[in-house]
């Protein structure tokens, strides 16, 4: 680990990452004020919001003043689908990405050329903090597509100068083959997929010596220290956590350094706050709270006080690596019912929406999450009427397949479906019964 620690001291942008906090706060203030001015002017959504809340953007002169600005939520983003929150004309947007859901619950995000540049350097920072250099061969096993994971890591790694293998997700056998033949040194993917690959390696009997792997840049879902240790042992790598969300940037929002004691935030691009998820007031120092992010440099898709829904901690204490950027702790949970299945965000309400629209299915369901061979497995138990339940196997399986197909389309991830008898699911009260998560750590 000393190798990684030594490398942790290397910064991609030392003038930013080691900036003294006073200068950083000045920079944040300038960018916050400019963003507020721009956003008030160009986005009717925010102008109305601020006017309604009685907040004059000129009167916001500090981070404390920012607290008077109302939050922006996922619902706001959904309601503006597709381009309602774009602050620039579409022709200035050179990239579009999306997050979770297909229709109705989806969010579209856009990037200008400058936004892409900033994004790239934020990811590069995270990679370098995790130990990546231009000598590395980086295998990006995040999904390339509308989601920001694949392209985000790709861009950052390319910027660092590493050799990038755009594997995307899936095709584990091929992943392993490539990893050996191409002499991959750094793997970027979700921790659960990494675990899956590790197990496949073992199963395939590939000797560890056949791999050149030394680094793991894992993110996209919460994972424990225990899992980190396992991964580091099984793959003989140094594994670091990184955090991102597409609404605000994509990967690159924060990443661990070699100290592995918190993820350094890209504070020159984002202003981070921690709030009490219930009251919305600033969280007490040292307490766990919901991460709220305000974009400081986004041109196409600026956001003010976006509630990420992720629970974490925040500290500005100096890190031994020398970086002065604040650190957030590993994500501890969600404020809402969002699930992450195989790295994909799933809201139970999406499942409900699909079932309601389908003939024959009751909107009473339960999603059971298990882990097999280190991969998430989701099974949706759907209550159906007696008639169907006791019906022909053919008709039942037809319905089951239809539901499975519709769910896969909507969620973007495959789930198994089982039809159960009406009223057999524990009613409980509200959400708790909807999800049974047996994945453990």
């Amino acid at each position, binding site marked *: 680990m000393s190798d990684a620690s030594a490398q942790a001291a290397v910064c991609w942008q030392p003038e930013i990452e080691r900036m003294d906090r006073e*200068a950083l706060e000045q*920079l944040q*203030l*300038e960018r916050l*004020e*400019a963003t507020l001015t721009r956003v008030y002017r160009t986005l009717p959504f925010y102008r109305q919001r601020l006017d309604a809340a009685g907040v004059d953007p000129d*009167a916001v002169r500090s981070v404390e003043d920012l607290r008077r600005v109302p939050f922006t939520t996922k619902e706001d983003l959904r309601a503006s689908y597709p381009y309602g929150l774009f602050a620039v004309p579409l022709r200035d947007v050179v990239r579009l990405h999306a997050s979770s859901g297909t229709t109705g619950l989806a969010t579209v995000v856009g990037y200008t050329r400058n936004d892409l540049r900033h994004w790239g350097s934020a990811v590069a920072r995270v990679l370098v903090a995790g130990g990546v250099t231009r000598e590395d061969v980086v295998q990006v096993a995040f999904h390339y597509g509308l989601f920001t994971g694949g392209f985000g890591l790709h861009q950052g790694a390319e910027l660092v100068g590493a050799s990038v293998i755009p594997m995307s997700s899936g095709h584990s056998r091929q992943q392993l083959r490539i990893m050996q033949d191409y002499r991959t040194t750094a793997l970027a993917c979700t921790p659960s997929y990494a675990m899956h690959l590790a197990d496949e390696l073992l199963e395939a009997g590939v000797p560890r010596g056949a791999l050149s792997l030394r680094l793991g840049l894992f993110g996209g879902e919460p994972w424990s220290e225990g899992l980190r240790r396992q991964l580091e042992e099984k793959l003989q790598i140094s594994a670091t956590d990184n955090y991102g969300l597409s609404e605000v940037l994509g990967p690159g929002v924060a990443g661990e350094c070699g100290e592995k004691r918190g993820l350094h935030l890209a504070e020159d691009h984002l202003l981070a706050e921690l709030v009490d998820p219930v009251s919305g007031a600033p969280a007490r120092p040292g307490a766990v709270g919901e991460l709220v992010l305000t974009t400081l440099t986004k041109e196409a898709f600026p956001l003010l006080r976006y509630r990420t829904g992720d629970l974490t901690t925040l500290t500005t204490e100096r890190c031994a690596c020398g970086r002065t950027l604040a650190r957030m702790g590993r994500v501890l949970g969600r404020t809402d019912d969002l699930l992450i299945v195989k790295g994909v965000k799933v809201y139970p309400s999406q499942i409900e929406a699909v079932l309601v629209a389908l003939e024959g299915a009751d909107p009473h369901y339960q999603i059971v999450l298990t882990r097999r061979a280190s991969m998430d497995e989701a099974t949706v138990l759907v209550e159906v009427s007696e008639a169907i339940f006791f019906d022909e196997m053919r008709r039942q399986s037809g319905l089951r397949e239809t539901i499975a197909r519709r769910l896969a389309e909507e969620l973007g991830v495959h789930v198994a479906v089982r039809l159960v008898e009406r009223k057999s699911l524990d009613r409980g009260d509200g959400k708790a019964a909807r999800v049974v998560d047996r994945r453990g750590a």
Partner: protein
Amino acid sequence: MLRIRNLEVAYGRRLALRRVSLHVDQGEIVSLIGANGAGKTTLLRTVAGLVRPAGGQVLFRGRDTAGLATERVVALGCSLVPEGRQVFATMPVLENLLLGATVQYRRGRRAEVEADLARAYRLFPRLEQRAGQLAGTLSGGEQQMLAMARALMARPALVMLDEPSMGLAPLVVKDLFAAIRTVRAEGATVLLVEQNARAALRLADRGYVLETGRVVLEGSARALLDNRDVQRAYLGGEPSAAREGERP
């Protein structure tokens, strides 16, 4: 070196600047661009002590200069080359330059004044040729050089220039900006206000865009040059598809 927080400046009832924040670090060239009336000149004049702010903070080398007399600000190391040159028209070029060195005389650094005079002539040879001429008889470009050289005689740590290219031919502007680069290379920090946004951003490391008394955009000069709104508003439109990948 210069840190401005939430600066508010009023002209009578009208707010020329509303909560402007910006900073200039040692050794940087920072450009301030924006349309007429955006407040750029007001900002420089406030930092120079010619205008008293209504609110906010101006920290120059750690000292709060809001409300300080201009002569104190100059003594602290901040010199302004004002809009319209403002040379002493009825006095010869040499006297203009020596007057610029007033703070140096007060500090007792006569020898440095000699050296600085030589350096001024090196930067702007034309001034040496016209040393005895009345400043008012110089051409616009020469007057601008004189105004700049005069400000440099004080050995300022921060040089602020207000629209130096105004009314000057492109070739003259080129020379002027080359001189600014030299000045920075010799250790000064520069805050440049310009209507000629393209030239200003090409010269600068970072920039701010001011509109109606507020900062609307901040970033590296390159990012500003690539920003579409800036291109449309200040750089004469968007580049054609053919020139897209080119550095402007």
